[in-house]
């Protein structure tokens, strides 16, 4: 999809979310100046380690945290600048699904009541037609009508995540923020849920902001991929570009760290894993934030923060040396019978 043709649904404009910072302590810069767009019917994957700020970014998009600076535009509307009533309407266009399907459901409410809740809040009271919507949604996410009368503890993890998906869809949103939605599921259930997301996208013209630490999942679902580290984007581009031809050393390190289910005959030795842990977002390194773990870092990286620049059309990288970092993926990746 070309940049110009994209019908823009979400725009983050220099979004920053800082926490704390009172009484002389430095604030935690969870998100620190991110520009990102999501188009209609587009899936943008957001990857990074814990502490990268990816979940905080998702929470800022749906309005669970207020940005410190910058703006969140949904359908061109700067949400936080709107009056409260209008905010509510704008926000209903973006829904969220979280990682732990059990914690996201009220154990005292039946499945149907949970799914119905957003409609009841929107309309101010329960209406008979709500039940039809709930029934139709249960079917769409692959549950029986009988599941509607159950409570969360009577369901398996996969079924609970289906309930969360149904609830996310009930207001007919344009976009869903998926925050690690398959991380807690077994692989066979994960496959079912990922297939469900793909089908719903086709049927309902949905866009997703798909937050995950799992590269293979993101590669599977995403049209574009954003790589986040310590509150900033390191790389952004088409999924194939970013994952098969990564240009940022951090992206390369993430891909190299991905365990490969390939036999020893075609396994290529992975480069040594990057050392150390992600630094504290309260005291990010000067210059390039990744420099303390980067195998290519030089003095310049400590003094000069690399610009987030467009290297090729649609492919942005924040690294002084992105031009020199070329080549294919850093590990053996088996693609349907061959090694790339």
């Amino acid at each position: 999809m070309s940049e110009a043709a994209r019908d823009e649904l979400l725009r983050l404009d220099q979004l920053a979310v800082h926490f704390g910072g009172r009484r002389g302590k430095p604030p935690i810069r969870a998100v620190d100046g991110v520009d990102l767009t999501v188009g209609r019917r587009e899936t943008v994957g957001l990857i990074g380690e814990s502490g990268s700020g990816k979940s905080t970014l998702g929470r800022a998009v749906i309005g669970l945290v207020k940005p410190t600076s910058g703006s969140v535009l949904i359908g061109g509307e700067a949400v936080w600048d709107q009056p409260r009533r209008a905010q509510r309407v704008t926000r209903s266009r973006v829904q969220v699904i979280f990682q732990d399907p059990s914690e996201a459901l009220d154990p005292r409410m039946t499945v149907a009541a949970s799914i119905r809740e957003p409609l009841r809040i929107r309309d101010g009271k329960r209406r008979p037609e709500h039940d039809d919507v709930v029934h139709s949604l249960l079917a769409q996410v692959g549950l029986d009508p009988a599941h509607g009368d159950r409570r969360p503890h009577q369901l398996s993890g996969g079924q609970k995540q289906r309930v969360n998906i149904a609830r996310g869809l009930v207001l007919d949103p344009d976009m869903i923020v998926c925050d690690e939605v398959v991380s807690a599921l077994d692989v066979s259930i994960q496959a079912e849920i990922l297939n469900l997301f793909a089908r719903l996208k086709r049927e309902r013209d949905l866009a997703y902001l798909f937050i995950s630490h799992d590269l293979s999942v993101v590669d599977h679902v995403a049209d574009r991929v954003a790589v986040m580290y310590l509150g900033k984007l390191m790389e952004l581009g088409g999924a194939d570009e970013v994952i098969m031809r990564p240009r940022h050393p951090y992206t390369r390190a993430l891909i190299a760290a991905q365990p490969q289910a390939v036999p020893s005959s075609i396994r290529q030795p992975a480069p040594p894993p990057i050392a150390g842990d992600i630094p504290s977002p309260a005291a990010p390194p000067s210059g390039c934030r990744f420099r303390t773990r980067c195998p290519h870092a030089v003095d310049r990286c400590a003094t000069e923060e690399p610009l987030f620049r467009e290297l090729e059309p649609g492919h942005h990288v924040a690294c002084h040396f992105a031009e020199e970092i070329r080549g294919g993926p850093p590990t053996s990746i088996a693609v349907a019978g061959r090694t790339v």
Partner: protein
Amino acid sequence: MITDGSGNGAGPTPLLDVRELSVFLPAPDGREVQILDEVTFSVDRGTTLGLIGESGSGKSMTALAILRLLPAGARVEGQVLLDGVDLLSQPLTAMKSVRGRRISIVFQEPMTALDPVFTIGYQISQTLRAHREFSRRAAREAGIEMLTAVGIPDPSRRYDEYPHQLSGGMRQRAMIAMALICQPELLIADEPTTAVDITIQAQLLALLRDLNLTRETAILFVSHDIGVIAEMCRDVVVMYAGQVVESCSTDDLLERPRHPYSSGLMWAVPRIGSHADELFAIPGRVPLPGSLPDGCSFHPRCGHVQPSCIEHPQSLDPVVGQLHHRVRCHRSSQLDLPGVLDEHPVSLIGGDHVRSSS
């Protein structure tokens, strides 16, 4: 090496030989529920064996049963031979000299496995002093040396710190240090990297591979992740609903799986660059212990089911011509199941290969 279990004596005694290990737990209604069903595998000295399966497959229960750490009321049948000596037939007190000294275990969640009120160093040195004659000072030296070996920077300072002062990756390194301080012959690693980031996982796997090579510590690696098993383990055991359904070399499993469940597990995981439109989802879910289906436990979820699969349970038998590849499937000789190097298995999934995009 996967022994054929018949004990026909080819080669040396394996370090760990688990034979027909069954575990029964009491259910709330007073009945007994079978959790493990004749689990059989072996680990040779200095080698790595992966135990893979989904939640409820019994892989963690197997690890606990080896160390006799099962919940109260559990009943165990079969044998767990360590160097030819059955751990299950010994008095429970004898396990004190096995745990931590000959077999150690590292769990998934280092924060619950470490005691928050004692320093890292105290917990490491206690393990050492429980099993060996070590003065406090000598134990401290050995502990710091071990922290260095597992790649903890500034080890003499970290030795005196508490678990909460360490990052998740560092805690797991400390757990590994604690597990290896007495130089055990076998390390059981139960999902040791599931709770950490992928970059930290890569560091820990590199560390464990290195320790396996340099210290010749055998590793029984429990994981749900076929990629991690492929990176870590020479041999692999696939578990489903409390049974071993396939055991072979990891390369054989990846290239030529013989059980539909093994093949399905590989194809359920999205793979980088594969561009599959749809993933192969194994239909249904793992049956609960105590309510297993008749015949082959996997038959309700299997795409290759035949009447015989429903009527008769299947034993774990060698694949024809491959003594070390064992599979529990009526139809394995008739099936040509896709491994990771095969083309997108249209027969399994159906549909086209087009990437979904807008």
